[in-house]
C-alpha cells in the first residue's frame, strides 16, 4: 500500500500551483460578487479561462497528445482537478464536452469527427451542451422519445431535451435520439448545430435564480449524415461508457472543493468568536471528519486507477457520498453562520469566502444529476451486493 504521489507527480503539482498563482488572480466567487460581471460577462470570463488552461496544457489531461491532450495518468488529472476546485477556479464552459463528448469521439468517433470537433472544443471556440435527458426521461433515460428520421444521407431530429447545462451559450449539442424501436439498440448518438431554423433553445430558470440550464426543442432539425457518432444504434452503449468516465473524475476534486468551503466556514466562525461554542465546534468537526473520509475514498479510487484497475460500480458510492455530503455541509453552514449565511453573493455583509446562499441551493442538484442517488443505490444493490431482482 502506498498513497504517496511520485516525485514527478509532486513536481507537476508544484508547477501547477505556481501557474495558478500567476494566472488565477480571483476566485470565481469573487468574480460573481463583482457587480460589473453580468451573466454574459461571466461566460466570457469562463471562456477566457478555458483558453488559458488549454494553452498551458491543462485540458484533456488523459487524452492522447495527437488530440490535444497531455497523455497524463489519472493521478495527474486528479491532482489538477483537486487544485482547480480547491482554488474555486471558474468552471470551463466546455466541461461536459470535454468530459463526455471528447472521450466519446476519441473512442467511438471517426477520424474526420475528431479533426473537425476536438480542437475548437478544447480552445472553447465552440461550446457544447449535452442532449440526453427529456421531460419524460430522466433516471429512465432509455425511454427517450426524441426521434431521428433519415433524410437522404442526413437525419431530421424532432423532440425535446431538457437540463441542457450551458445550453443558452452553446453552439453545438450532442444528442441521443431514437432511430429504432428497440429500447437500447434503437438509440443513436448525433452531433447537431444549434444555430439552425429547426432548433429553439430557451433558458430554464433554476432554483438558484440563474438560467444556466436550457430546454431545447427540435422540429425537423438537421443532423448531417457524417455527424452520427459510432454506428447506427450504438448511442446507448457510447453514452453509458462516457457517463462512466464522468463518475470517475471527481475522486479528489470534491473533497478539495469542500475543503475550501470548510475553511471559509471555519474562518467566519473564528472571526466572530463562535467557534469556541461547543455545539458549533462539534458540528464543524463532524463535517471535517466526513470530508476526510471522502478524500480517503478518492485516494483509494485514484490508487486503484494508477494500479491499472478500472473504476467499478464503487464509483456510485462516491457519487452518493459527495452529493449528500454537500447538502449536509451547506445546510450546516447556513445554520451556523446565522441569518448572515443566507445573504446572496452581492448582498451587503455577505461572507466573502463562499457564496453560501448559492451553494446551499446548488447542492440540491448534485443528488439528482448524473444518475440520482436512488439510481446509484440501485446500482450498488444490484451490481455490487448482487441482491435479488424483483420478479
Amino acid at each position: 500500500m502506498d498513497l504517496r504521489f511520485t516525485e514527478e507527480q509532486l513536481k507537476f503539482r508544484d508547477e501547477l500551483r505556481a501557474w495558478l498563482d500567476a494566472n488565477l488572480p480571483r476566485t470565481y466567487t469573487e468574480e460573481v460578487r463583482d457587480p460589473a460581471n453580468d451573466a454574459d460577462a461571466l461566460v466570457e470570463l469562463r471562456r477566457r479561462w478555458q483558453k488559458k488552461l488549454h494553452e498551458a496544457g491543462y485540458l484533456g489531461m488523459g487524452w492522447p497528445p495527437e488530440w490535444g491532450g497531455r497523455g497524463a495518468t489519472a493521478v495527474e488529472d486528479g491532482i489538477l482537478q483537486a487544485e482547480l476546485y480547491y482554488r474555486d477556479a471558474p468552471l470551463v464552459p466546455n466541461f461536459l464536452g470535454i468530459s463526455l463528448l471528447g472521450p466519446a469521439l476519441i473512442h467511438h468517433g471517426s477520424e474526420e469527427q475528431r479533426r473537425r470537433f476536438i480542437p475548437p472544443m478544447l480552445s472553447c471556440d465552440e461550446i457544447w451542451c449535452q442532449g440526453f435527458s427529456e421531460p419524460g426521461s430522466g433516471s429512465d433515460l432509455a425511454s427517450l422519445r426524441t426521434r431521428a428520421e433519415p433524410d437522404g444521407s442526413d437525419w431530421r431530429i424532432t423532440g425535446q431535451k431538457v437540463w441542457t447545462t450551458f445550453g443558452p451559450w452553446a453552439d453545438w449539442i450532442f444528442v441521443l435520439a431514437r432511430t429504432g424501436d428497440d429500447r437500447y439498440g434503437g438509440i443513436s448518438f448525433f452531433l447537431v448545430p444549434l444555430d439552425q431554423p429547426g432548433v429553439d433553445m430557451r433558458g430554464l430558470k433554476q432554483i438558484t435564480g440563474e438560467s444556466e440550464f436550457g430546454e431545447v426543442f427540435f422540429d425537423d432539425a438537421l443532423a448531417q449524415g457524417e455527424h452520427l457518432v459510432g454506428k447506427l444504434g450504438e448511442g446507448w452503449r457510447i453514452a453509458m461508457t462516457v457517463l462512466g468516465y464522468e463518475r470517475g473524475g471527481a475522486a479528489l476534486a470534491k473533497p478539495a472543493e469542500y475543503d475550501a468551503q470548510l475553511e471559509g466556514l471555519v474562518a467566519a466562525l473564528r472571526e466572530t468568536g463562535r467557534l469556541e461554542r461547543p455545539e458549533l465546534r462539534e458540528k464543524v468537526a463532524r463535517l471535517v471528519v466526513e470530508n476526510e473520509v471522502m478524500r480517503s475514498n478518492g485516494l483509494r479510487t485514484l490508487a486503484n486507477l494508477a494500479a491499472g484497475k478500472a473504476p467499478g460500480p464503487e464509483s456510485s458510492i462516491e457519487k452518493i457520498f459527495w452529493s449528500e455530503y454537500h447538502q449536509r455541509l451547506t445546510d450546516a453552514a447556513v445554520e451556523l453562520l446565522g441569518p448572515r449565511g443566507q445573504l446572496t453573493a452581492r448582498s451587503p455583509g455577505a461572507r466573502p469566502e463562499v457564496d453560501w446562499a448559492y451553494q446551499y441551493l446548488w447542492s440540491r442538484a448534485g443528488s439528482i444529476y448524473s444518475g440520482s442517488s436512488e439510481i446509484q443505490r440501485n446500482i450498488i444493490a444490484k451490481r455490487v451486493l448482487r441482491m435479488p431482482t424483483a420478479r
Partner: protein
Amino acid sequence: MQFDLDEDRELLRQSTRELLQKEAPLAETRAVMEETPEGYAKGLFAQLGELGYPSLLLSEAEGGMGALAFAATLAEMGRVALPGPFLDLCLAVRVLAGCQGDVAARWRDRAAAGEALVVLARSEDANEADPGAVEARCSDGCVKGTKTFVPFGAQADALLVETRDGLALVVRPGEGWHATALPTLDHAQRFAEIALDTPAGLVAQSSRATELLADAERLGSLGAAALLLGLMERSLELAVEYTGEREAFGVPIGSFQALQHRCADMLLQVESTRSVVFRAAWAEEADPAEAAYLVSVAKAWAGPAAREVCGQTIQLFGGVGFTWEYDPHIFLKRAKTLETFYGSTRSAELAAFDRHARFGG
C-alpha cells in the same frame, strides 16, 4: 500509488482469516459469551501468542509487523467478533516495550508470548468514556487508587496503572487487589472496577508515561477502528445473505427496493471505513505527521458507521434479529462498546478538528 496490501501483509491477513474461521467461529464466540467467566478463549489466545500476534506493534527487530498488519489482523478479528482482550494485550505489550527495567521487560515477553494477560488501567470516572483526571498514586513502592472500566481487569495477571507519579506495573497479588465485575451490554466483554492498595513499582516516570499512553491511545483508536471495520463488513454480509433467502409476499425480501437501498447505504459505510482505516494505518507507517489526525478521523467515522450498519442488520432480519439465537446482536453489541472506548466518537471528532493541519491550534 497502490491501495492493496503488499504480499507479506496480505498473506498474514489470509492466514489470520483461515485461523479464525477454524478456531473462532461464531458458535465459539457464543460459548465464550455464555459460559466462560474469562470472556475469552484462553487456548486460542495462547495459540495467538505462539504465532507472535501480540507483538504486532513492536519494532520489526522485536517481531512487529507495523500498523498495516495490525489493522488487517484486527479487521479479521472483527469479522468473527472475536471476544477477549486482544487489542488491549497488543497495547500493553507496546507500552511495556517502552518502559524501563527488567520487570517490565520480563512482563513484556510473557505478554507477547501469550503466557500472561497485561492490560492498561486508566479511567477513574465511569461517567466519562475517555480517560481523564487521575487520582491514583504510586509512592513508597505501593499503588493506591481505584480504576474503573478496566478491560478484562478481573482476568488480568498484571495491570499497567496510570498514576500521578507515572506508570506503575501491578502484578496481581493475593491481597490488596479488589476487582468488581461490571457486566455491560456487550455480553462478550468483561470490564472491572479495581480498587488497589498493593505493592507496585514504577516502570515509566510521568513524562515518559504521558508519551507512552498517548502512543497507546492513538494505536488503540486505530485498532478499534479496524475491529469496527471487520464487524460491520461481516454484519452487512449476514444481512445480504439473509434477505436473499428469506421470502415474504412470495419473493426474497432482498428484492424490495426499500431494503436494497438500506443495504447500499450500509456498503457505503463499510467501504468508506475501509478507505479511511487503511489510509490511517498507512500514515502510521509512512506519514507520521498526518497519522494522529487520520487515526482520529478513522475512529470518529468507524464508530457511528459500524453501530449504524450493525443496527440496520438487526432491522433487516426482522423479529429473529432480536433473538439471542440469531447472530446480528453479537455485532451490534461489540460495535457499541468499541464506539464508546479507545477514543469516543465525540472526542475523536474534536481531536480530528484540532489536529487538522489548517484548522487546529
